[in-house]
């Protein structure tokens, strides 16, 4: 698990990065909405200009093309089965699939671009300003902070099991992995208690405390 997955390029200093995060989020929502609403015929000739627009933004943002392409391609395992299904069972399935692919490809491209040019904390601050529920902001922040840490704890336990058993395999693995997850939950619970102590010592009284 690469730890710098998210904030790797979002900390750059370019005109795109300096744009207000709210504007960027709204732009992407609007773009994806347009892609969703536009009828299939219009998609075919608006796809290219939209792609060009995104590429121009990408160039200005100085985020490596490889990074964006790699992350955009996570869509493939979802698109391929749909294309296969449609081509076999639907009339004009291929052209239908093509439009679908363009829609989702451009949407995901813009989403990848958004998170590559906007810090996580800025997205949270913007959502907070838009009156997104505070409790959700807190959960999301904790998740972002502790997800990598828990992943590390989990990987450590799996490595230890593999070392002892001389490799994974066999039917026992289901049980062992479940045991690892049970321990991970217990550890998370205990950490939550300690984190709560740390919060109390800094004046937390249950009413948030996020700026």
């Amino acid at each position: 698990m690469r730890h710098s997955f998210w904030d790797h390029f979002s900390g750059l200093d370019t005109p795109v990065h300096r744009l207000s995060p709210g504007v960027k989020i709204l732009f992407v929502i609007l773009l994806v909405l347009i892609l969703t609403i536009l009828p299939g015929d219009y998609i075919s000739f608006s796809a290219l200009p939209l792609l060009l627009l995104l590429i121009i933004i990408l160039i200005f943002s100085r985020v490596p093309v490889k990074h964006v392409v790699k992350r955009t391609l996570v869509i493939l395992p979802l698109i391929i089965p749909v294309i296969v299904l449609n081509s076999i069972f639907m009339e004009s399935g291929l052209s239908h699939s093509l439009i679908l692919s363009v829609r989702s490809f451009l949407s995901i491209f813009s989403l990848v671009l958004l998170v590559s040019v906007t810090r996580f904390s800025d997205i949270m601050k913007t959502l907070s300003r838009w009156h997104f529920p505070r409790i959700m902001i807190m959960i999301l922040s904790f998740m972002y902070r502790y997800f990598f840490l828990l992943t590390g704890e989990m990987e450590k336990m799996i490595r230890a099991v593999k070392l002892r058993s001389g490799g994974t395999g066999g039917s026992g693995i289901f049980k062992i992995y479940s045991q690892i997850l049970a321990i991970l939950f217990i550890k998370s619970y205990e950490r939550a208690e300690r984190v709560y102590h740390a919060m109390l010592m800094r004046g937390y009284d249950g009413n948030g405390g996020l700026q």
Partner: protein
Amino acid sequence: MHIPDGFLSLPVLISTSAVSASLLYISVKKLDKEIRPERIPLMGLSAAFVFTAQLLSFPVFGGTSVHLTGAVLISILLGPLSGFLITTSAVLLQAFLFQHGGIITAGANIMNIAVIQAVLGYYIFKIFSNKLYISGAFIAAFSAVFIAAAICAVELIVSGTIPLKAGMIAMLSSHLFAGVGEGFITVLILGMIKKLKPGLLELKKI
């Protein structure tokens, strides 16, 4: 199960988002009023746990693997509305961090995973839990995944993204397997928590 942007039509997006948004509103209102402050970091850490657990591939025969969604598990541990907020956060962060799911389809994905699995799954569990804790958890986890897959298929079919019959068959058959895996893993984890720290099964359910 995470539907990407571009796969759903506007009417489907609007109706699923309406369901998800209203449940979000209800959950936030109720939790804001009822939870004790120490519950906030617990929910945050639980959400990080669910997010992490979803990454673990459980190897099954023939090189395939199943993953835990964890929605029913976390609802059984913390209650349906807590489970709803935790899985909703997981859906949102997944869309941003890994592009699993989308920004406009978030409402639909929240409905499939947080409403159907975390909330409905919890009430399925409640039907059985007094007498049959373990089998109740299995049935709840299995049927939650299965029902969510069916609803997901309906959303995609109504949007015209996949063909009716073949689409439904493909979704349900692939999730039959995932549902059984979800059931087994959920039950095994609950059993292990009971053995190691039984107090955690008695946390307040909200």
